[in-house]
C-alpha cells in the first residue's frame, strides 16, 4: 500500500535530494525524520511509511531509529517547544526552580502540551552552554541566563503572539516545524543573524587582551 502518495510531489522530491547527499541511502533516515517533523510536527505514521518506502526499509526498521532519539517525537508537540535544562549544573544554578515555576504557570509537565497546542515542555539534558546557565531552549534556539521570572515572561510573550528573540540566534524565534526543516538540511537563510558570540564565550579573549595578548 503506497502511502507516499499522501505527501506532495514536491515533498517527495525534497526527500530525494536529502537522500542524494549520502553514499548510502539509509544514512538519510535521520534528516528525513527531521523533515517529516517539519511537515507534520512529529513523526507520523505516514512519515514512517514514506521513509520506509523511499529507503527500501521495513517500517519496523524506521521506528527502531525514530524511537531511539529524544528529538523525534511520537506525539505532537507545541508550536513552541520549551526545553529547560535540568542536568546537574543548570539544575543547581536554577534550572529546577525554573522548571517548577513554568510547570505551575502552564499547568503542564514534562512531555506535555498546553491545550491550545501552543507550548510544550521538556526537561532537557546539557546543551553545551554551561557558561550561560541556567539554559532554556525554545525550538532548540538558545535562551541563555534564564530565571523563573524571565521564563514566565517568555511564555507570556509566546502566548501573546510576540515571542522574544533567542539570545544567540536569529532575530525572530522560528517555530518548531521551521527549525525541524533546518535540521533536515533545508537552509532558511538566517545564519547571518544573531551575535557571533555571547559575553561568556568572549571572557577569556577579553582577559587575554587585557593581559596584552594579540
Amino acid at each position: 500500500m503506497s502511502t507516499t502518495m499522501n505527501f506532495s510531489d514536491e515533498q517527495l522530491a525534497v526527500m530525494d535530494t536529502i537522500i542524494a547527499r549520502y553514499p548510502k541511502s539509509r544514512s538519510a533516515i535521520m534528516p528525513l525524520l527531521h523533515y517529516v517533523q517539519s511537515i507534520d510536527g512529529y513523526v507520523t505514521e505516514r512519515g514512517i511509511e514514506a521513509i520506509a518506502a523511499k529507503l527500501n526499509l521495513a517500517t519496523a526498521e524506521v521506528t527502531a531509529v525514530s524511537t531511539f532519539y529524544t528529538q523525534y517525537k511520537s506525539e505532537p508537540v507545541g508550536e513552541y517547544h520549551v526545553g529547560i535544562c535540568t542536568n546537574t549544573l543548570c539544575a543547581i544554578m536554577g534550572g529546577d526552580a525554573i522548571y517548577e515555576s513554568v510547570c505551575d504557570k502552564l499547568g503542564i509537565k514534562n512531555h506535555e502540551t498546553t491545550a491550545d497546542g501552543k507550548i510544550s515542555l521538556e526537561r532537557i539534558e546539557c546543551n553545551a552552554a554551561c557558561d550561560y546557565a541556567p539554559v532554556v531552549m525554545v525550538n532548540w534556539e538558545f535562551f541563555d541566563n534564564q530565571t523563573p521570572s524571565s521564563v514566565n515572561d517568555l511564555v507570556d510573550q509566546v502566548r501573546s503572539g510576540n515571542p522574544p528573540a533567542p539570545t544567540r540566534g536569529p532575530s525572530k524565534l522560528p517555530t518548531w516545524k521551521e527549525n525541524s526543516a533546518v535540521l533536515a538540511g533545508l537552509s532558511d537563510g538566517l545564519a547571518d543573524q544573531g551575535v557571533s558570540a555571547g559575553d561568556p564565550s568572549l571572557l577569556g579573549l577579553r582577559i587575554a587582551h587585557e593581559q596584552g595578548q594579540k
Partner: protein
Amino acid sequence: MTPEQALTSVETVTAVIDGVEVTVPKGTLIIRAAEQIGVAIPRFCDHPLLSPAGACRQCLVDVEINGRAFPKPQASCTMPVENGMVVKTQNTSPVAAKAQAGIMEFLLINHPLDCPVCDKGGECPLQNQAMSTGRPESRYEGEKRTYEKPINISSQVLLDRERCVLCARCTRFSEEIAGDPFITLNERGALQQVGIYEKDPFESYYSGNTVQICPVGALTGASYRFRARPFDLVSVNSACEHCASGCDLRTDIRRGKTLRRLAGDDAEVNQEWNCDKGRWAFKYLTTRERVKVPMVRGADGELHEASWPEALEAAAAGLKDKRVGVLAGGRLTAEDAYGYSKFARVALGTNDIDFRSRPHSDEERDFLASVLPTLTTTYLDIDSADHLVLLSFEPEEESPMVFLRAYRQVRKRGLKVTSDAPIASRSSKKLVATLVAGTSSISGLTSQSVILLGERAAETPGAISEAVKLAQSSGAKLAWIPRRAGERGAIAAGAIGNLLPGHRPVDNVEARVDIQSAWGVDSLPTAPGKSTSEILSSLASGSLDAVLVGGVDPMDISADALGQLLNTFVVSLEISHSSVTAIADVVLPVAAVVEKSGSFHDWRGIAREFDKGVDDAELRSDVRILSMLADQLGAPINLPTVTATAKEIAALGSWDGARPAFTAVAGNVSTVTNSDFDMKLVSWRLLLDLGTLQLGEANLAGTAKQARAHISAQTAAKLGVTEADHVVINSERGAIELPVSIREIADDLVWVPRNSADSQVIPSLGFTSGAVKVAKR
C-alpha cells in the same frame, strides 16, 4: 576428508582455559572453545549461528595474553582464542565469578517473577543460569518497569516485554538469517523493547525460530502458550512431513497428543531452524476430521463404519481381477511408498501407479527416471556456489531451508542469483535476484554453479529440457526440488509408472529381474504404466475399473480430477475425511506421521528417519494396510511392518545399471486463442495457504500472506484501478476477485497465489496458468 584431516588442514591455536589446554581452529571464540572442554560460560545474547553481539555481558571471563592480563574482564563471546592466551572463567577466577553474578543480578531486577505462569519455566536459560551463576537473593528493593502484556506481534507470536532480557537474538535472527526485519529494538535505555510497526506484524515464514531461541519466556507461540510444562513432554526425533527441505525436528508429545514441534539440529540441512509451517502446522493430527475406523459404502449410498475384515473384504472384492490404477500421493514416507509400489506390481499386476498429485507431464516423468537419479547436489553446493539459478522455483514458498541457505551466501558474499520468475517475489528481492525471461539469457555458469529446478517446470513443456541442457552444457550442478516431503521417497520406491524400486527403469530387463527375484515373483509388467492424468482419464472413460488412492487432493491436480473419480470403484487410504473419502467405496484409515515410524527423503534424495511418537491402537501405516489387503487379494507382499519394509528396501539397494536416455522436448509458443481473454494468469502456491495439512491452526493461518492480484502499473492504468480497488479475473471457466497490487510485471501478465483464501485458481479458473481477462470490479 575425515574430521581429523579437516582439523589438521586448518590453522589452529592453543590456549589454556581454567587450567586445561585446548586447541581449536583459529578464529574460534573463547566461549565455543570452553564448551569443547565442558566449561559452560553463562550467556544470553551469544548464539553459535548468529553474529557475536557482546551485549548481555553475562559471559565475562578473565583473559591474559602472553603474561599480560587485561585490566577488565572480557566478553568471551566476542573474543577469539589466541596462542598463549590464558582464560579463567567463573570456575577459577573470583573476578569473573563476581562480574557474572553482578550481571545476573542486574538482569533480574526488572525481570518479573512470572515463572509460575511462563511457558519457558523448566527449560529456561535464565532460570538455569541464575541458579548456577547468580546470587541466591536479590538486593533490589526498587520498582520494576512493567508493560502491558502480552502483545501479539503476529497472530502466532506473543511478546511479554518485561520478561525480555534484550539479548537481541530475535531481532538479529530476523535480520541476519531470515532477512525479515519486521521486529526491531525500539526506544532506548531501560525502556528499550522489542517491537513491530503495528500495521506490519511479524509475518515472516521463520518467526517461530525466535520463540525457540529466546532465552526467556518473552516470545511465546500462541498455540502452545499455557499448555504444558517441559517435564510433561516426551520428545521424539522427527522429520518434517510438509516440504522436501528435509528438516530435522523434535516433536514433543504429552499423553498421546502432539503439543509442539521444535527445529532439530542438522548442520548440513536446516542448521537449527525450521519454518513456521513445519513448526506449527500439526493440528491436522487431531482435528475431528480424522478417520479412525474403516468405512464401507452401503447399498444406501452412505459410508458406514465397518470392521477391518469387512472393509478389507469389500476392498478386495472391488479390486480383484480388475484393471486398477494407483494414485499414491506425494506425502508418503519412503516405506509406505514402497508398499504402494510393490502392491501395484504384485497384488494388482500393473505399472499404472503415479505419486504425482499435482500438475505433471511425461517430460517430467522421463526426467525423473533418467536424470534425477544421477544428481548429487546438496545444500553444501549452495554454500560454495558461484551462481545460483532458480528455474520455476520460489525458495521461500517451496523450500524454506533452501532459501535460508541461499540467503546466507547472498548476505555473506553477495552470491549471484538469477531467477526466471515473471515477478519478483519477496524471496527474489531478498536474494537480490536478477529476473530473466528464460535460460537463453543465462550465461557464465561453471561447474561450481547450481541450478535449482522446481516442480512447476512440468507445467511448461520444454522447461525441464532447457534446464537439463543448461546444466549439461555448463557443467553446473542441477537439483530438482518438489514441494512435498514424500516425492523423492516415492521416486526411489518406484511409485511411478516408469520406475521400479531403487530407481530401476521399468523397461530394463535386468532391472526387472532384480526386482522379480527380490520379490519372489515370476514376472512383472513390462510396459511403463499410465501417468496420473492418464489414470484419471482412463477411470472416467472406463478403460480402468478401479483406483487405489493415497493422500491426494484431486483439486491440486486439475479442476476435473475429482469428477473423473466418480462412477468408479475407489479404495481410499486416508488420515482424514476429504473430497476423496466422500466419494470412496471403501475408506481404510492410516496412521499419520506421529503415529508411525518411517523416513522421508529430502530433495537431495537423502533419508531422515523418525520414530513413532504416539501409540494408537487403531491405526497403522499405509504399508501394513496394503500388506493386509494384498493378503486378502491372495497376492501377498509380505510387508507387515515399517521395519521389515525398511530392511527390504535396504537389501534391494539402488540401481547402478543403464538408464534410459532423456529425450528433450521442445517448448511451444502459447498462442492466445480468444482475443477476449487477452491476459495470461500465472500462479504458484504460497508456503502458508489452504493446504490440507495446515488445517486446524488458525494462529498460523493468520500470518499467511493476503491474496492480491499483481499487475503492472500500465495495466492498472488501463483498467482504471489503484491499490485501493479490486479486480475480477475471468477465465473461460470461472472467476476470482482480488484486491490489486501494483508491481513490476509484464503488462500482459497477472499473478495470483494458487491456493489461498479467495484465490483458489484450479477450481475457480480451471487451470494453473492460462488465458484470462481482467476488469475492475
